[in-house]
């Protein structure tokens, strides 16, 4: 439903005519995204009634107040690289593109945190922080993903989770425009004491802010956030190789930066691989460690080049399946050579105990691995180039034993689809498996399938996989609520909270109460979160 001229004018008065549009041509660039064919059965989701480009907290407050006055849904987003960014519960909704709010406000090295606005992406912050000897955790969505989106609004998994935790665990305070238009500054920043703690004075609101998987823009707008920083052991600047004729996708650092060492270790079995991840986590020695999974595949300029390389390697006797699912990749880092030596010795001792074999890496292979693990270079390509879409299900977090059980169940579920060629076949279902917070928070596991959304059989196969793995009465119910859904959890379509709430202590009831309290007029779009009352 379109906005009336009066409503539109009220919004335009806030941001200026050049920062708002209701042109259909423009609006249809804010409702097309990967995953839409799967979720909405077409490339388009709901067309917004308008798109607004606010430039400040004050403007966002004024917009929220107008939305309350006229009962207009609103949803903010940063890069917009997720289905949850655009989904609106109905057409009387506007999207807030936060592109103009792109400042890194502060990098506080002494207190190890950085304060950013919504359009600052993770790679930009990592590179700026590196200049000061610090860095920030990585994001699985790749270098373009927003720091605030990942830390405050979404799950925020990443390859550095062993040393940094998921980005969602790194929030140290926010400036939050509530759905009512009021501003809440959370944590020590409210007192003017700085952004070093998200808690106090008073009770912590971090759980309310984002819970486990984030409200996905469903209850207000985070206009500033402070995230925790960690040591960066490498040089302040890095430069990728410049070989004439080499496309950007093939560029590497040349070698692993000083201060770090990269390893790829082959273990006797998948079960031992889980044990190795657990022990390395507990040893607190790794900057990054994860199951190798799809990263074992050659990268290639494009799909054709990658396929040619794979055929060549297979002809030479390489079995990707064997290597991918019983090997791990590890990055060790330290600010002293003795520190690095200690970590390496510890790693090798664990490998000796588990009969692991450290595979030789060329400097280029090590450098590619480093950029992948530290900054997620190549992950987005791997996820999308092959078919256009991917999905992660089943996915969960839990103890290593539970995660191993889920992995085995996932292989059993998905293998028939792989064998029939309905999803990409790299031997077994791909795996994203990382010990979280040095294994103290268990493992994070995603089973990844790549399907072609425009191939009806492949699309149907993916839907069957999801239906089975996310059935609250099915074999995966004991692994927890499917809270990620590859960023595709659209409540209006999946009804996940409605279906899973009654099984898990009616948790949905508490979420709905939070939503209701923060958003009494229900103007914060709930399609990727939860409504106060289910329609």
């Amino acid at each position, binding site marked *: 439903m379109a906005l009336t001229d009066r409503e539109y004018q009220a919004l335009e008065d806030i941001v200026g005519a050049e920062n708002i549009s209701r*042109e*259909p041509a423009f609006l*249809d660039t804010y409702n097309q995204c990967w995953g839409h064919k799967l979720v909405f059965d077409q*490339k388009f989701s709901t067309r917004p009634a308008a798109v607004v480009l606010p430039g400040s907290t004050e403007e966002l407050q004024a917009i929220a107040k107008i939305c309350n006055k006229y009962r207009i849904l609103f949803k903010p987003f940063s890069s917009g690289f997720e289905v949850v960014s655009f989904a609106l519960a109905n057409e009387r909704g506007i999207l807030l593109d936060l592109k103009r709010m792109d400042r890194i406000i502060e990098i506080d090295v002494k207190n190890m945190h950085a304060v950013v606005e919504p359009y600052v992406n993770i790679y930009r912050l990592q590179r700026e922080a590196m200049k000061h000897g610090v860095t920030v955790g990585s994001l699985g969505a*790749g270098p373009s993903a927003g720091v605030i989106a990942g830390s405050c609004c979404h799950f925020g998994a990443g390859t550095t989770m062993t040393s940094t935790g998921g980005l969602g665990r790194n929030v140290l305070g926010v400036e939050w425009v509530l759905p009512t238009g009021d501003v809440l500054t959370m944590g020590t920043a409210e007192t003017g004491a700085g952004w070093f703690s998200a808690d106090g004075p008073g009770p912590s609101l971090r759980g309310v802010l984002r819970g486990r998987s984030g409200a996905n823009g469903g209850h207000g707008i985070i206009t500033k956030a402070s995230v925790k920083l960690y040591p960066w052991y490498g040089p302040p600047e890095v430069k990728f190789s410049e070989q004439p004729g080499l496309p950007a996708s093939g560029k590497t650092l040349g070698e692993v930066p000083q201060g770090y060492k990269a390893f790829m270790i082959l273990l006797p079995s998948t079960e031992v691989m889980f044990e190795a991840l657990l022990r390395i986590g507990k040893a607190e020695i790794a900057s990054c460690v994860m199951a190798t999974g799809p990263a074992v595949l050659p990268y290639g300029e494009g799909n*054709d*080049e990658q396929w040619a390389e794979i055929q060549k390697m297979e002809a030479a006797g390489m079995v990707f399946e064997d290597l991918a699912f019983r090997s791990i990749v590890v990055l060790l880092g330290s600010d002293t050579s003795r520190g690095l030596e200690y970590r390496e010795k510890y790693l090798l001792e664990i490998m000796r105990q588990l009969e692991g074999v450290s595979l030789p890496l060329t400097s280029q292979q090590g450098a590619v691995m480093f950029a992948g693990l530290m900054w997620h270079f190549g992950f987005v390509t791997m996820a999308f180039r092959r*078919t*256009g879409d991917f999905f992660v299900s089943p996915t969960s977090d839990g103890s290593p034993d539970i995660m191993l059980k889920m992995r085995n169940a996932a292989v059993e579920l998905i293998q028939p689809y792989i064998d029939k060629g309905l999803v990409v076949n790299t031997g077994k279902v791909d795996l994203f498996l990382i010990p979280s917070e040095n294994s103290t928070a268990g493992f994070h596991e995603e089973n990844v399938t790549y399907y072609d959304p*425009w191939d009806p059989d492949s699309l149907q196969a993916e839907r069957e996989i999801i239906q089975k793995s996310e059935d609250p009465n099915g074999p995966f119910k004991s692994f927890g609520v499917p809270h990620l859904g590859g960023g595709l959890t659209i409540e209006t379509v999946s009804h996940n909270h409605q279906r899973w709430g009654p099984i898990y202590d009616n948790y949905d009831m508490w979420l709905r109460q939070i939503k209701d309290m923060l958003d009494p007029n229900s103007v914060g779009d709930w399609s990727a979160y939860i409504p106060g009352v289910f329609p």
Partner: protein
Amino acid sequence: MALQDFEHDMQRCTRCSYCKWIPYENQQNMDFIKGCPSAARFNFHAYAASGKWNMSYSFLNGRIDYSDAFQDAVYKCLLCGSCDVSCKVIGDLEPLQHMHELRCKFVEDGEILPEHFVTIEGLKKEDNMLLAKKADRGNWAEGIAVKNLSKEKAKVAFRAGCRYSFDQELWPIVRGGLKLLIDAGVDVGIWGSEEVCCGGRAYSIGFAGELTKYAEHNLEALKAAGVETLVTPCADCYQHYKVHYDKIGKKPDVEILHFTEYLHRLIKEGTIKFTKEVPLTVTYHDPCHLGRLAEPWIHWKGKEVKVMGQTICHEPPKKFRRGANGVYDIPREILTSIPGVKLVEMYRTRESAWCCGAGAGVKEAYPDFANWTATERIKEAKSVNAKALVTACGWCRRNFIDAMEAGAEKMEVYDIIELVQKAI
């Protein structure tokens, strides 16, 4: 290809927004990481390559029709190809080809900007893109004793292009270039007033027929003059002769070289020797048409096939143009071989260079945007402490001058030819 032939790509644009930035692998200074001038200036997603995929898909599905907004987003684009380079880091898509085809569709349906209409009418009448008189085209070479290729044969044809032919302020460059060849003893000729447009800029606006028309004429002219090598200081002409003529099946059977390439040969073989010092710290601006857009055209005909279950490959394998094989090193080698010249690099170089802002009809229709884009580049050049900004394209040179006249911070701007002249 027609617009609908890109439907596969439209469906598979993930909206990663990589098209807005230079590739992450090429990012050096975080203050200079934007790649698409249009998206950077106008903010709405419609101005990025991804937005163009979205609008085309919506258009093909009957959800939107032609509108001022649609046209604004389509034509406030420099077709500089930055998005194409970045997109291809993560996908097997062709955003630049698509955006060009979208313009052709606009033109086919009569959706033409008034400024472009005037320019194209001028082209049809006077065979140039600058609304100038055809008869004046050869004036730039007045007083230079050189063969007339309309009457005589020569091994090398020197082609000035529309910009250099009619922009008097740039005449010293083109005259200097021609004199360098003559002094080096090259058997060279020009067409003078008989030279006509290459058709490339009209093509970039969406007038596909003009490219074919001028390609046919220009190939005939090359043949008639018995030319072995065509040399041009115009990066636009260079790209269209080398790449787009080939794309439309009219590949010249003579060697096509940018002036810097020919100059490089003369320097390497010792025909041109530097005798004077030019004490200057310079930075080099890669013109899009000499850089990422100048990769040879790759003809491919085949079909999509699925391997490894669902991975989309091609039969026969398809090689994508990814921008890394433009002319990048030669201009730099010339600059660093000039005694006294110190070359400092900007942060966005080679296939990640920021456009000057003059391309694809933007200068004609949206001069403010053209100036803004150039101003951003000048800021970058200043940030590396360069005293002078050097380029190898008349359109870039003109646009930098215009931007400075419109308020951009002042700095010296040179064509490589001018620095070479100073050193001889």
